[in-house]
């Protein structure tokens, strides 16, 4: 197909499209969704019993604040980076809170998959941790993917990793309020793994989509 033919194809039967809302507003929508999901989790699981003692611990508060700020700045950065004309420098936004967060990150959830007690072998706290993080981060990942799916044409890997980091941070912050064990490392591994998987899948689908666009007869491109 020649370029002129392609232009004719693209401009035939052109539908009206809705311009995206400003990135900060869309980031705020996603953060509200995250608050809703994490509130449901709080209602279903209950706040950990020693929460007041933990809130007296300066290191716990710093980690919690670091995670929340990493989540908020990370999701803002992801929405900014997803737009072609915004600077790559937005990637630096979550770095400072991330430093706070990872300086106190915990790995306990990696070490307690199965527990042995007099009654026999049972599923450990890690398994419960893992289930919680899957149920929390999966809807948030899906929502973020749907809101940023166009980024696959622009900066797919950076957006997915920064978005994955934001989801990890918010999930870790919420889980530290519900679970006795610190699950941060497990959460980061899961979410960044999910992000890379989503990017791989999206890149594959995008290549097919572009091939499909090229082979489309006139008037069928929306």
């Amino acid at each position, binding site marked *: *197909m*020649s*370029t*002129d*033919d*392609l*232009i*004719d194809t*693209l*401009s*035939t*039967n*052109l*539908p*009206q*499209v*809705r*311009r*995206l809302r*400003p990135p900060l507003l869309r980031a705020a929508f996603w953060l509200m969704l995250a608050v809703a999901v994490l509130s449901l989790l709080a209602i279903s699981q209950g706040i950990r019993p020693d929460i007041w003692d933990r809130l007296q611990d300066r290191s716990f508060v710093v980690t919690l604040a670091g995670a929340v700020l990493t989540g908020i700045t990370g999701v803002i950065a992801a929405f900014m980076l*997803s*737009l*072609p*004309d915004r600077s790559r420098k937005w990637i630096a936004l979550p770095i400072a809170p991330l430093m706070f967060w990872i300086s106190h990150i915990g790995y306990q959830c990696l070490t307690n998959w199965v527990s042995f007690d007099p009654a026999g072998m049972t599923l450990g706290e890690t398994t419960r941790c893992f289930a919680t993080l899957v149920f929390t981060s999966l809807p948030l990942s899906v929502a973020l993917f749907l809101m940023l799916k*166009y980024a696959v*044409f*622009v*900066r797919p890997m950076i957006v997915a990793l920064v978005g994955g980091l934001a989801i990890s941070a918010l999930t870790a912050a919420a889980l530290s309020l519900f679970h006795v064990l610190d699950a941060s490392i497990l959460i980061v591994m899961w979410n960044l793994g999910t992000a890379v998987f989503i990017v791989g899948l999206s890149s594959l689908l995008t290549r097919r*989509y*572009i091939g499909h*666009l*090229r082979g489309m007869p006139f008037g069928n*491109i929306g």
Partner: protein
Amino acid sequence: MTRDTGSPGRPQLRLVATSAEVVSSPAEPDSSSKDVDWSILMARAQAGDAVSYRRLLKEIAPYLRSLAARYRRNPQDIEDVVQEILMTIHSIRTTYDVNRPFLPWLTAIARRRLVDQIRSQMRRSAREQSMNGEEDVFADPRPNSEETADQHRIEEAVAKLPPVQQQAIRLLKLKEMSLKEASLISGASIPALKVATHRAIKSLRDTFFKGSRS
């Protein structure tokens, strides 16, 4: 046409170029007025105005071609990447904010597609091996009995291509015609023949590459 939503720091809108100006416009936009015009055309395209959209794509194509020519030498590669950029613009036209300049948005997309094309070509060339002529062992075609089998395989693979690509590859590669001759015979334009041949070779390469691995 006047700009309905202008931000304070942005230049006033001038008339969008006429069709004649579009044809003779320089490939390189050198003023912010071009940016404003394109911004307005894109805003109209987002509202579903097909005429404005067509005009925008026609106007930006030479600019994209000149941008691509800075990094690519092969005209076919340039045309391919221009088409990729146009399709990307089409797919993510919702991301353009009319309150922001158009050119940074456009060039960011163009650079991304260019980088992707260069990367994928580097990956492809790393897999391919250049021929140095030592493969022609026999001067007499008769002892080259393997050639007949190869010809059958090529014929089979060509027969599986879409009709346009089949015709292009038969005329240009198997019958070794020039682009002009092939264009006269087939009635297709030279760029269309080039694109069809490029795609046919890519499909054939995929077929044989997969075939040799399995």
